[in-house]
């Protein structure tokens, strides 16, 4: 007998109607409903999260987040019309990954999802997605970073369509140092500009290892070492090593100078820049819309490194189409995946609705004249590291972020970094 959460949820829904009917059947049953204030805010922990129900009427079901769904809906249906099929693009606003894994293993998940590549490790270990094959022409059209990102265990697991990475936004009304060569120069220019805030980089109380990554790498830190074949070696942890401590020293110094602060977080980082309070912002292409809307006179540049130290290498996150392992319409999913890879027409149509830096070289060329900022992001991405997609990465985000936040706040860099390393190692069982 197998009981699982999913079956429980679907059953309770049915049971409710049953019992409600039963309860109403006696004419003068006392109504004891509402005697205490019910409140439906169950924590996302062991509560029942909102169930997304697969649209069964369609011949191809794609799940993704709200923004991507808006860009994909009509384009996917247009392709479907040529095949004489219905395509449903469904929005999963909350915990797409968890919902997808659970639904897929229950056999009623979507046929495809569109998501970031760093989920691949977890999706593969749960048997949720299938590898795909790219023909050589399509392969040649993709940027190397995109191919690296979707490669896992020597197989391609997704069809990339755009890449996101971090860059430096400069408020040109506040400072004329639009391309600082080093972080030190940036700090100096920011302080000279008289802005409330030199640099808006999300740290927050619990840290933000993703946004700190360019500074961490410039200081000499790395997360996982590489094996000979270029894949990540989960047993070689860079956190706690010499490079990471050197980086922590530098990050701590920036905290001392108030260039970095725990009070800047993901909630307010972009708005501090759009309100004109910050001279510099480190963020991704998703910030462009807000900044443009606010009418900020801005420029996008490469994130500089520390003086005399390494290059700042942010993470690159590649968004890709994944074929579900247990989808009901796997054939159409695989066909659509091949269609997206074949040329950049689908990516281009999606770009028109939701502009994100492309990964297909012919599309990047087309955009050079019309959308220079996007092409800059494409360039920066080429020099970035793909976000590690191995499942072990889950153990790094929390401790490394917390350590960095405390270091910004003035904690001792060496002991804090070392303790983060111990925490990560105990989770990974190293």
């Amino acid at each position, binding site marked *: 007998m197998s009981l699982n959460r999913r079956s429980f949820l679907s059953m309770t829904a049915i049971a409710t109607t049953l019992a409600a009917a039963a309860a109403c059947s006696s004419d003068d049953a006392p109504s004891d409903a509402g005697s205490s204030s019910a409140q439906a805010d169950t924590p996302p922990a062991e509560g029942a999260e909102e169930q997304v129900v697969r649209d069964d009427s369609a011949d191809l079901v794609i799940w993704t987040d709200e923004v991507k769904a808006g860009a994909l809906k009509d384009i996917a249906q247009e392709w479907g019309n040529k095949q004489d099929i219905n395509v449903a693009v469904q929005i999963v606003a909350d915990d797409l990954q968890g919902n997808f894994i659970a639904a897929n293993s229950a056999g009623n998940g979507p046929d495809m999802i569109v998501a970031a590549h760093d989920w691949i490790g977890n999706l593969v270990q749960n048997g949720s997605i299938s590898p795909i094959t790219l023909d050589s022409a399509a392969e040649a059209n993709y940027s190397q970073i995109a191919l690296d990102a979707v490669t896992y265990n020597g197989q391609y697991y997704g069809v990339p369509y755009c890449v996101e990475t971090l860059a430096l936004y400069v408020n040109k009304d506040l400072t004329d140092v639009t391309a600082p060569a080093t972080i030190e120069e940036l700090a100096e220019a920011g302080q000279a500009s008289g802005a409330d805030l030199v640099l808006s980089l999300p740290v927050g109380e619990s840290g933000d290892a993703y946004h700190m990554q360019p500074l961490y790498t410039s200081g000499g830190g790395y997360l996982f070492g590489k094996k000979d074949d270029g894949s990540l070696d989960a047993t070689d942890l860079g956190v706690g090593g010499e490079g990471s401590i050197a980086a922590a020293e530098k990050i701590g110094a920036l905290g001392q100078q108030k260039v970095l602060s725990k009070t800047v977080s993901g909630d307010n980082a972009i708005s501090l820049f759009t309100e004109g309070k910050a001279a510099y912002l480190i963020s991704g292409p998703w910030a462009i819309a807000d900044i443009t809307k606010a009418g900020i006179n801005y420029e996008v540049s490469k994130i500089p490194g520390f003086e005399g130290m390494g290059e700042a290498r942010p993470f690159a996150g590649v968004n890709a189409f994944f074929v579900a392992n247990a989808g009901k319409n796997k054939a159409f999913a695989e066909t659509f995946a091949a269609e997206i890879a074949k040329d950049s027409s689908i990516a281009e149509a999606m770009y028109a609705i939701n502009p994100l830096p492309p990964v297909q070289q012919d599309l990047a060329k087309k955009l050079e004249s019309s959308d220079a900022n996007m092409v800059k992001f494409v360039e920066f991405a080429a020099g970035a590291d793909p976000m590690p997609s191995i499942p072990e990465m*889950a153990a790094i985000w929390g401790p490394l972020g917390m350590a960095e936040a405390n270091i910004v706040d003035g904690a001792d860099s060496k002991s804090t970094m070392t303790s983060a390393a111990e925490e990560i190692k105990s989770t990974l069982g190293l």
Partner: protein
Amino acid sequence: MTSPTAHTGGGRAASGADNPDSPQSPPNRMPRERTTTIRSVLGRILVLGAALAVAAYLLPLLFAGRMWLWMFIVVAATVAIFVLFSTRRFIPGKYFFPGTFFLVVFLIVPIVITVQTAFTNFGDGFRGTKEEAITTITNNSVVQAADSALYNLSVATTGSLEEGPFTLFLVDAETGEVLYGADGEMVQSATEMDVTVTDGYVTAAAGYTVLNGKQVNTAYDTISNLTLSVSDTSAIKVQGVRSAFEGIKTMVYDEQTDSITNTQTGEVYTVQKIGNSDYFVNADGERLVQSWKQDIGLANFQRLFGNQNLLKQLGGAFSWTLIFAAGSMLFTFLLGYFLALTLNDDRIRGKKLYRSLLLLPYAVPGFISLLIWSNFYNRDFGLINELLNLNIDWLGNPTWAKIAVLLTNTWMGFPYMFIVCTGALQSIPDELKEAARIDGASGWQTTTRVITPLLLVSVAPLLVSTFAFNFNNFNAIQLLTEGGPFAPGEYTRGGTDILISMVYRIAFGGSGADYGFASAVSVVLFLITGVLAAAQFTATRRLEDIN
């Protein structure tokens, strides 16, 4: 929100004293004359019919899904509905059944599931069965043979469109060569055959029916699993409805030895235990990532009780949890009660307006207000410090963060207490106040010695449920502080972590989702909360003496 979650009953603590109903009805009561109206008969038929229809709809589905427990529940519930509601008898049962049914479905079953899960490794990487893991490993290992072409695929059949047998027609996109073959065969050239090729695809073949995309999609399970060999090691792998390639399965499972062999490197992966779970592991100790759901006995509980640091931190979290729950309960009650008393005075004008304004925190969704409050507390840019011209590190200092959490939770929860106390106050007769005044009690004495004890009789159980609710109030912590601030070098427990938020981070933060461990901790938390609530209810019994 500091309101208790819905309990059945919700209201009065049970007491044997004030409910002297004996099972037999008193003889002096005349039996009520029963009439059967058309309406009640119709209603009854409709309900029973609906119950039967639902059961008839569900049973085949449950049978197909092999959910035996649910099948049993549905059958039992349907039978119970018929037995209880189709006749005039079983009057107590009619009332007893709905509550019991809900109790089983919404309380007992989830608890059973949680306890079951606590003894497994269920979580990321351990979800399916061993067979599923093997299938995934071998299917995911198919690689494109070196220098092999991509083929344009057409699927044709000599039999039915759903069942086959299917034959694959392949056109080499570069050379235009046409190949074909059926399940279990080797690929052969189609030069002898009468085939029509249009735009690089075989569109017709003598003696065959060519399937369209939808038909291929429908029969894809069969089509993608047929073996059409190209050589000894490679076979045609279908990809989608229009293409295929020559693929090599690099991982092969052998049932005899229960092992997986990599045909490229010759490595053999056998089932071995790493930690608490079985994986396929090779001679070098390297494991394949896909594992499966297994029973691991008490390992989750050992992990919980065997880790000294974790236990110590749980202890610390436990004491703060008690303070947080008790503090939230106390402050919301005091504030709510004070406001209720104030607004209960007839001298106040515009009571309705005040009352509706006071309900606002209760009307705003908790998620939103918690996130907004969390921004208010920002040291440099937060509303509170800016308005009051302070420089308090609300969220960065453990003590201030605790105060912030309690403040916010009080704000969110007092309207509930305000409603409850307003209701309770209005049920206390004015004569009592008058009598107290004539006896020479001051206003303060009347409130504390007469009104409050009477009010507590009905409000105390709600205080207990508020306490129990806040004991596990995950949202209030997670959305406001995420359990932070974390002292340097401390990653398990933050300054405002209550048990549930800390456990959530351990079970879902570090290594993906670990439902097994989370369930084990939930079972322990469940016991703790249960004992605490039971003790409190016992304590509230004493208030009954007031009546």
